[in-house]
């Protein structure tokens, strides 16, 4: 069985937010809920990097660990899903999640939380595959149709990769091998100036942080 994974290559992400839009449209997520978001670090300064982030389908998921009603489950593909019929909207999964994946539509009096909604790796929920009930609660079940999540399929620069962890890792490893993984690879001096390299300064445009 495959072990499904997302990977966002920060050297390639251009913050176009197409993944966010694709996800919203494909899964018809409730108003005010975004299952995926793009975060930019050091926006506007040299070394700016963007990354698309959603549920990362952890092996030992903190959300599943803290859920008071135990509504999470893992599929055979290692996708973390939850049962909205069981969820009580307490918000604990949101406290614990490292990636800010769980989202809550506003529901009921005084803005209390509705049932949690999050990225399903386009794998639906516990209902029958691609049934109207499943679609209404969880959105598309592309995995059941033999397709990968739409966010990754839509990614123009192929920064966002989704699929079996081994395959994703192979693609990424190949990329890193070709372009080099650090600031001391062959050709760096030529591309970014030998002076910067020799004096050990952060390389303009490539190093993160900016001042």
């Amino acid at each position: 069985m495959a072990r499904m994974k997302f990977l966002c290559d920060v050297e390639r992400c251009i913050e176009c937010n197409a993944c966010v839009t694709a996800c919203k449209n494909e899964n018809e997520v409730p108003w005010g809920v975004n299952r995926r978001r793009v975060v930019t670090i050091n926006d506007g300064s040299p070394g700016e990097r963007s990354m698309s982030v959603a549920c990362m389908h952890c092996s030992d998921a903190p959300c599943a660990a803290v859920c008071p009603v135990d509504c999470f489950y893992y599929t055979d593909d290692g996708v973390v899903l939850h049962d909205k019929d069981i969820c009580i909207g307490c918000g604990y999964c949101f406290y614990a999640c490292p990636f800010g994946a769980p989202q809550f539509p506003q529901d009921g009096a005084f803005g209390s939380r509705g049932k949690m909604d999050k990225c399903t790796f386009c794998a639906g929920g516990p209902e029958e595959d691609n049934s109207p009930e499943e679609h209404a609660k969880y959105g598309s079940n592309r995995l059941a149709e033999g397709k990968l999540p739409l966010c990754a399929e839509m990614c123009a620069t192929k920064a966002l990769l989704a699929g079996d962890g081994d395959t994703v890792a192979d693609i990424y490893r190949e990329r890193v091998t070709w372009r080099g993984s650090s600031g001391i690879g062959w050709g760096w001096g030529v591309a970014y100036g030998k002076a910067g390299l020799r004096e050990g300064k952060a390389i303009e445009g490539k190093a993160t942080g900016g001042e």
Partner: protein
Amino acid sequence: MSNNKQSRIRHHRMVVFSLLSLVVLTLVLPLIPYAIAELGETAGNVANPGTEYWRDVRQRDRIVTGTTQVRGVDTDVLINVTGEEWRQFRMGQLAPYGAIVLGVMVGILVVYYLVRGKIRIEAGRSGERVRRYTSAEMTVHWILAITFVLLALSGLILIYGRWVLIPLLGDAGFSATATASKVIHNYGGLLFAAIVPVAFFLYLKDSLFNLKVDAKWFLRAGGYLGGEEPSAEKVNAGQKAWYWVAMLGGFVLVASGLVLDFPNIFQQGREWLQGAHVIHTIVAIGVIVFFFVHLYLATIGVEGALESITSGHVDANWAKQHHDLWYKELQTGQGGGSASEEPSMSGGSHAGGVASPIAKD
């Protein structure tokens, strides 16, 4: 002939030379990168930009927030670094240690009951009834008591239901219970927030510590562990301690609870929620532990105690035994009333039908 010999020597030399160079090269070639690193140190000083980026994302050196087009709580944070700590607290510390603390307290009370039994009114009931609480004091007590029990119960269900109730009720059944617990907890908390300040001021006067009397009471542990029962005022030192635990704990619970309530209105960030949750649960477990003691002593622990808060009256001998200073005060007739009034017993469980020995209000 000599030609042949010469070529053999040359061949021999070539073989030896090749072997030697092979050995030398095998030893030396792998050292070249080290030599380069040793001589051209500059290259090693350049930090890998990738490591800095990931350090930023994990917020190891500083708090890093990015920018994002998605509006919502904490959406500009890539990694919620405190989430895992909070998980460790709730699953690894709160749940097990909370269960141990509550269980140990219940165990102590059970053992105490088996060893000591009910604390009787030694002189027996006199039949004479003494006014202890006003109807306002009783009403506030019961509103506070009912809200507190509902909140404690629903809170404990949200912590321990996953292990205790799911096997009994099933997933869907427990989901309904948990939803009800959440609603009771969220809105019952508002009632609790309203009643705690009222209770605080209502019982404050009687609950201020009187060092001379109360220190002695504490030193003798109220006589519960043997020895003579120390003298006490209307409210003994243990009850005063419970007042302060419940009230100060109550204020903390209300404050931290309000931080946790209404997340979609105030848009609290996760650090606020996690911090408030940690404080809320630790204090709640502490107050519940004290509450067990209060519940035990007020019901099965001490004969004649419960009626004080259901009827507002206690037996005169009970007052003499447990609150001697208060009883003496009543005897000296503060406020004109007299404790040696005709016994107005028999069915005198209604405050209205009983003559009050002290005209307190």
